[in-house]
């Protein structure tokens, strides 16, 4: 009875650690295989297209509207103090430091991370991963590493696009719609926005890219239980990736800024 209870408390914790360990191991293996010839450039390219290009539209839309709503919200706040000029700065800083990388990563998780888990999960349950292994090809190298590399490269790229369109969106709302003095808006933005804000945001994005791809690939790679298992893996991939992104965002922010 008592042992049972103890077991029930310990085993989830144990599982969490085991899962973290396995994810870490998968990441390690991916890194190992990334630098082994032959390099699978065409696989990486294909994944770059999938993770990057196919996410551009959703990232742009997210970015623009985030910038716009930020401008609108902060305008109402700053107007009370007569410092509407600071709206531009608020938009730019929020987007480059936080919202650009985080929202991009969350959108890509939803779009590409879930697809990674579903693809690898399907490959697992239909024995395609076994087929690769039978051909003496390492599935981590062929399936996981290219996705991680692609995400690592594409997330900063998508983020810089999100940053840019977000700032433009803020500008449109702030200057064109709300009539904030254009000079003040732009100058304050430029004055307060550091290169470091942009670069740190991009570093964050790259880290998020690694996190979401490793977690999603892990969930897909170790799928079991047929089609239902694939569905479960996909959901878990999105949830675990998103939570990990937000947690790591806090950690990164506290280190960087």
């Amino acid at each position: 009875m008592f042992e049972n209870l103890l077991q029930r408390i310990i085993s989830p914790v144990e599982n969490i650690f085991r899962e973290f360990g396995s994810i870490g191991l998968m990441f390690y293996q991916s890194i190992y295989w990334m630098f082994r010839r032959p390099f699978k450039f065409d696989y990486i390219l294909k994944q770059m297209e999938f993770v990057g290009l196919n996410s551009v539209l959703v990232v742009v839309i997210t970015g623009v509207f985030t910038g716009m709503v930020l401008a609108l919200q902060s305008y109402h706040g700053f107007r009370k103090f007569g410092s509407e000029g600071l709206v531009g700065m608020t938009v730019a800083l929020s987007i480059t430091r936080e919202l650009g990388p985080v929202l991009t990563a969350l959108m890509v998780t939803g779009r590409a991370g879930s697809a990674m888990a579903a693809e690898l999960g399907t490959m697992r349950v239909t024995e395609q991963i076994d087929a690769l292994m039978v051909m003496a090809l390492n599935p981590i190298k062929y399936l996981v590493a290219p996705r991680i590399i692609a995400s690592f490269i594409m997330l900063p790229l998508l983020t810089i696009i999100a940053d840019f369109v977000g700032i433009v969106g803020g500008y449109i709302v702030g200057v064109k719609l709300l009539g904030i003095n254009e000079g003040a808006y732009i100058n304050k933005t430029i004055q307060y926005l550091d290169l470091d804000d942009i670069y740190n945001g991009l570093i964050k994005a790259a880290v998020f890219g690694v996190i979401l791809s490793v977690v999603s690939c892990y969930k897909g790679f170790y799928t079991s239980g047929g089609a239902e298992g694939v569905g479960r893996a996909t959901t878990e991939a999105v949830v675990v990736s998103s939570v990990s992104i937000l947690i790591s965002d806090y950690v990164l922010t506290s280190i960087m800024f």
Partner: protein
Amino acid sequence: MKENTAIGIKDLHKQFGDQKVLDGINLDIERGKITVIIGKSGGGKSVLLKHLIGLVKPDKGEIWVDGLDIVKLNEKELNETRKKFGMLFQEAALFDSMNVYDNVAFPLREHTKLSEKAIERAVEEKLKRVGLLAFGEKMSSELSGGMRKRVGLARALIMDPDIVLFDEPTSALDPVISVTIEDLIRETQTHFQKTYVVISHDILGMFRIADKVAMLSNGRIVAEGSPNEVRRSNNEMVQEFMRAVKMPALSGGNYA
């Protein structure tokens, strides 16, 4: 281990949870021969086959391939051994991100330095053999189960491997194509003197091509030998199997 043994299986045990699937398998797969493994559905045939190529680790036992116990090999060494193998999966396991042609060409592209021209020749030859030359551009998700099986077969043979494992090569096929495929297996084997391991429920067809038959039952090999030896075995499981296929049209009408 005898000189002409390609794969030596010693006391192989495998258990999933409480279910004992393999319970002490001992079997020698002869080099240059076709070994057919028969057994009940869910009896562990596919699991046994996956052990032979290192996809599943046994709980206990040894699997000797060319003087190496593949159970103890690390990934890299195992891959070297795997290069001698070809395998047809029960559900074909085609890569559904690729079309038929690319699926068959894939092992060549990854393991050889052949030109695209040479690859094309090899792939088309194999596709012709399985009767799918016209379907090279189809995505694998657009194929029927039997077609997938045949593409899988072509892919398993494309590298001309020394040992090929077939998991039910004819299970999803109509009788006519079944015969073609059986002929293909027989022909390639006789021609290149390769070692084939075939899992099948198609007793009649398999007895046609088998050099050796092994019966898997309750996690053990209960009968093995030439087709005729096995047919005459007085093992109960074997007799049950033989009775089941004695259908009037095929066996000359003496069913009772």
